[in-house]
């Protein structure tokens, strides 16, 4: 159990100063009986007030003590005259003992219940805190994901702008080879450097286990230009270096790609003008 939070709460100071409501004060008393560290802290606080009181002591007039002692004297005398007989006294003692027993049983039950309550409270608080932390972590990772997504998009747009404004980059539209099917892709190709990008935003999602593969045709032969990642379909993707392309095509292949294109699975095609 972490006692420092109880010690630092300020409640122990309030307890010593008599500023805690009774039920909280008895909680503090129980804690002090259970944990020596808390008792020590309470003692130190109490000693501070005691030292302060000693420092500003004022000697009372001598008459005060005389008056007090004679008042006590009178009290003692009146109480001694009212002392009952022996038999009655023993009965009182027995009663006292049994009421003391009852009291201590009640007190132990109280302590037990209090401890039970305390542990349930601490358990619940702990659980709640754990849940809160988990929820916050989830939120944070959610935000982080959003951030990376946004960053990717921004980078992609910047890339798009750069490619569009670069006069040595050619844009080739790949159109559907099947009639009536709306699908297309855009390829950005720098003839001089061989840099090649694809924007797959308008391709349909692939069935599971399948992946789009980009090809370019050079000297009449299809050359692998890389796999398209459809889980990142909203950003430009850098493909393999491409030299001497006359046309581009995308086929639907098994995941990871094929060495040669499956011609009847060709989706889109575009010629370099």
């Amino acid at each position: 159990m972490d006692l420092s939070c109880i010690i630092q709460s300020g409640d122990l100071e309030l307890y010593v100063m008599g500023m805690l409501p009774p039920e909280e004060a008895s909680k503090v008393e129980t804690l002090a009986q259970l944990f020596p560290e808390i008792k020590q802290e309470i003692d130190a606080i109490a000693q501070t007030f005691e030292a302060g009181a000693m420092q500003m002591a004022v000697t009372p007039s001598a008459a005060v003590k005389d008056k007090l002692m004679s008042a006590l004297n009178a009290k003692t005398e009146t109480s001694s005259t009212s002392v009952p007989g022996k038999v009655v006294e023993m009965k009182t003692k027995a009663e006292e003992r049994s009421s003391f027993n009852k009291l201590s049983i009640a007190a132990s039950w109280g302590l037990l219940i209090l401890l039970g309550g305390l542990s349930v409270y601490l358990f619940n608080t702990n659980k709640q805190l754990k849940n809160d932390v988990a929820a916050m972590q989830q939120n944070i990772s959610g935000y982080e994901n959003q951030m990376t997504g946004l960053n990717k998009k921004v980078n992609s747009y910047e890339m798009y702008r750069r490619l569009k404004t670069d006069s040595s980059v050619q844009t080739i539209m790949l159109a559907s080879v099947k009639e009536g099917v709306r699908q297309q892709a855009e390829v950005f190709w720098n003839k001089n450097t061989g840099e090649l990008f694809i924007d797959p935003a308008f391709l349909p999602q692939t069935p599971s286990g399948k992946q789009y593969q980009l090809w370019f045709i050079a000297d009449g032969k299809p050359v692998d230009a890389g796999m398209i990642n459809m889980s990142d379909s909203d950003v430009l993707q850098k493909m393999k270096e491409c030299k001497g392309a006359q046309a581009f095509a995308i086929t639907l292949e098994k995941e990871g790609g094929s060495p040669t294109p499956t011609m009847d699975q060709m989706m889109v095609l575009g010629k370099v003008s």
Partner: protein
Amino acid sequence: MRLNKGDQQAMSELYDRFSGALLGVIMKVIPDQATAEDVLQEVMLKIWNNIGSFDTAKGRLFTWMLNIARNQSIDKTRSKNFKNSSQNSSIDDSVYLSETISSGSGNADTMDVQSWLLHLPEENRKLMHLAYFIGFTQEEISKELDMPLGTVKTKIRNSLILLRKKLNVS
């Protein structure tokens, strides 16, 4: 403990040892020494009557007595009788703002009633005075000094930490 048997001798020793400190505390609430001494008398009788209910396991005897003295004094200032008849200004700002308690009695001792709260910065001193000597609740202090409830508690704790250092309490 001897006092449990109502031993007058023990009470006399107790008086010799602590009455000065108790009167000092009472006079922080009721500066008029004659009235304060009346309260001291009441306090000592209360200690005598209730010593049986004092539990050494739960607390310190001196602190227990100090609290009786404080409560008795505070109750006194709040009693209708005191308010009507009293010409002294016990809840006056001067008590905690001045260096010493002003007293008309001319008793040399009163000059020594340098408040140990003077170790504190003014705001904390005022706060501790309201809490300890005037018996204000946290809510009342919060309202009086116009500060959030949490701040009251923090300042009380900080004050105690500082006082512990100044008064050499380990």
